[in-house]
C-alpha cells in the first residue's frame, strides 16, 4: 500500500544541514494499523509527511499503491492526496466554521456534488459521534471532540489511508482511549489502512498491528507489536517497551538475590500463559522459585505477561529448570545487575 525506499531528508538550517531521515525504508500493508514510535526529534513527523509529500524527500522513493508519487505533477499529487486522509496533533480546524462546515468545506472545494456533500458530512459526523454538535464552533468543543471533527473531515474524502501525526498527544488518557477506539473502528469497519506516529507506547500497544521504532532519523527495529513487546532487540526498543513496566530492583536487594541463585525475567505469550509453569518447575526440579515482581501488558489482540522470578538452588538444577521453561515456550532472559 505505502512503500518508502531509502528515503532521506535533509533540512538546511542556516549553514547547517540537519538529517531528519537517513535512508529509511518501510512498508505498510493494506488494511493494517502501522505505528512508528520514537522520541521527539527522531524524525517521525518528517517520515509521515513524506507519504503525502507535505515534505519532499531529498533522496529515495515513495510509492502509494505502486505509484511513484515523487514523479507526479501538481494535479496528480492533488488527486493522490485525496486518497490519503491526515489528522494532526493540533486538529487544524477552521475556527470560523462550525463542525458541519469544517467537514463540508473541503468537499465543496474538491468539487463534490452538493447532495453528496450533505450525505457524506452527515454520515461521517454520525460515525465519529458528533451529529448533535454539527452547529457548534471548534472553540465550543473539547480536544477530543475537535479531533473527532478532524477525523470526520479526513474520512469524508473516503480515503484508503489515514495518516495520524501524533493525533492523541494533546489529549488526556481517557480521551486518548476513546479516539483510539474510534481509529480501531475506522480500520475495522471502513477497512482504512492507518499509518500513525506517536511517542506514546500506549497507542502502539492498544491499536497497532506492526510497529517501527525510530531513533535519530533511522528505523532501528520493525516487527509485529507482539514480537517487539516480547522480544525487543535494540536498546531503544527495550527502553520504550520496558520503560514503563520494567521492574526496578534496589541494588542491594539485587546483589543479595544474585548471590543466592539466579534472577530471570519470564515473558508469557498466548498459550504459554495458561500452564502453571512455575508450580510444575518447583515440583520437578530442586529449585525454589519466588516471584519478585510481575505485570501484564494488554496488546491489541493478546496480552503479554511478565514475571521477574528468583530461582534458588544448585546451578545445574537451575540450568535444567531454565531449559524446562524454554521448552514451555516461555521467553527467558537472565538478569545480571
Amino acid at each position, binding site marked *: 500500500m505505502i512503500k518508502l525506499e531509502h528515503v532521506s531528508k535533509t533540512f538546511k538550517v542556516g549553514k547547517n544541514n540537519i538529517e531528519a531521515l537517513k535512508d529509511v525504508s518501510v512498508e505498510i500493508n493494506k488494511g493494517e494499523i502501522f505505528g512508528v514510535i520514537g522520541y521527539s526529534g527522531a524524525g517521525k513527523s518528517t517520515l509521515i509527511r513524506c507519504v503525502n509529500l*507535505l515534505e519532499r524527500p531529498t533522496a529515495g522513493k515513495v510509492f502509494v499503491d505502486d505509484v511513484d508519487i515523487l514523479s507526479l505533477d501538481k494535479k496528480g499529487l492533488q488527486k493522490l*492526496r485525496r486518497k490519503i486522509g491526515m489528522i494532526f496533533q493540533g486538529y487544524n480546524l*477552521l*475556527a*470560523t466554521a462550525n463542525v458541519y462546515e469544517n467537514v463540508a468545506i*473541503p468537499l465543496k472545494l474538491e468539487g463534490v456534488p452538493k447532495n453528496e456533500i450533505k450525505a457524506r458530512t452527515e454520515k461521517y459526523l454520525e460515525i465519529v459521534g458528533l451529529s448533535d454538535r454539527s452547529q457548534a464552533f471548534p472553540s465550543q468543543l473539547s480536544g477530543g471532540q475537535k479531533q473527532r471533527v478532524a477525523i470526520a473531515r479526513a474520512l469524508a474524502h473516503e480515503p484508503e489511508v489515514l495518516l495520524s501525526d501524533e493525533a492523541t498527544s494533546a489529549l488526556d488518557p481517557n480521551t486518548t482511549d476513546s479516539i483510539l477506539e474510534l481509529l480501531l473502528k475506522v480500520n475495522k469497519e471502513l477497512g482504512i489502512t492507518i499509518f500513525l506516529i506517536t511517542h506514546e507506547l500506549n497507542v502502539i500497544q492498544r491499536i497497532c498491528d506492526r510497529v517501527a521504532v525510530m531513533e535519530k532519523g533511522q528505523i532501528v527495529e520493525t516487527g509485529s507489536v507482539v514480537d517487539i513487546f516480547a522480544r525487543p532487540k535494540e536498546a531503544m526498543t527495550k527502553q520504550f517497551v520496558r520503560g514503563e513496566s520494567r521492574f526496578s530492583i534496589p541494588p542491594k536487594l539485587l546483589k543479595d538475590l544474585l548471590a543466592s541463585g539466579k534472577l530471570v525475567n519470564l515473558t508469557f505469550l498466548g498459550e504459554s500463559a495458561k500452564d502453571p509453569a512455575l508450580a510444575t518447575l518447583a515440583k520437578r526440579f530442586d529449585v525454589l522459585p519466588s516471584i519478585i515482581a510481575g505485570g501484564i501488558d494488554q496488546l491489541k489482540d493478546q496480552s503479554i505477561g511478565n514475571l521477574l522470578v528468583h530461582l534458588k538452588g544448585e546451578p545445574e538444577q537451575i540450568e535444567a529448570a531454565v531449559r524446562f521453561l524454554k521448552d514451555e515456550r516461555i521467553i527467558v532472559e537472565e538478569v545480571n545487575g
Partner: protein
Amino acid sequence: MSDFLNQWGGSIWQGFVETMQMTVISLIISILIGIPLGVFLVLTRKSGQAENLPVYTFLNAFINVIRSIPFIILLFFILPFTKLVAGTTIGVQGVIVPLVVACAPYIARLMESAMLEVDRGIIEAYQSMGISTPKIIWNVIIREARSSIILGLTIATIGLIGETAMAGFVGAGGLGDLAYQFGYVRFQPDVMYAVIIILIVIVQILQSAGNVVARRLKKN
C-alpha cells in the same frame, strides 16, 4: 445655534459629502490593490506557498519607501503621476490618486500581518487534502483572517479620513479643508470645533462598527 447652522450648515454638509466621497472611492480602490498585494506578500515570502525572494524583497522595499513619505509631501511629490493617471491634479478626482498611493501599500501591510496570523497547520491540513493554493487563499487564509482583516481595514479607513484633510491643498475640499480655511486662516474657531466634533463622531462610529463586525466574524 440656528444662526450657526444657517450660516455654516451648507458648507459643513458639503465638506462632509466631499470627505466621504474621497474616503469611500479611495478606500475601494485601495482595497482592490492592497488585498491582492498583501496576498502576494504572504505567498512570496520565505517559506510561503509560492516563495520568490526577489519579488518579495522588491515589493517589501517598495512598500516601505512609499510608507516613509508623509502624505503631505507625497501629494506634491507624485503630481506628474497623478496627472498621468487622473488627467488632473486638482479637485476630488485629483486627490484620489495620491490617497490610493498612500493607502494601498498600508492596507497591503495590514493584510499581510492579518494573514500571517493564520495557523500554518490549517493551511497544511488543506494542502494534505489535495486542495489547490488559490482555493486555500480564499477559503482558508482570507476566511480565517477575516476578523483581523476587518480591523485592519477599519484602521486604514480612519487613517484615510485623516489624510483627506490635506486634500484642501489641491482644492478637493472636505471637512479638513473647511476647518483649516475658516477655522484657522479666518479665525472662526466655532467652525473648527464643529468639524472636529463631526470627525470624532465619524471615527467613533467606524471603529465601533469595525469592532462589532470583527467580533461577529471571529466566531470564538
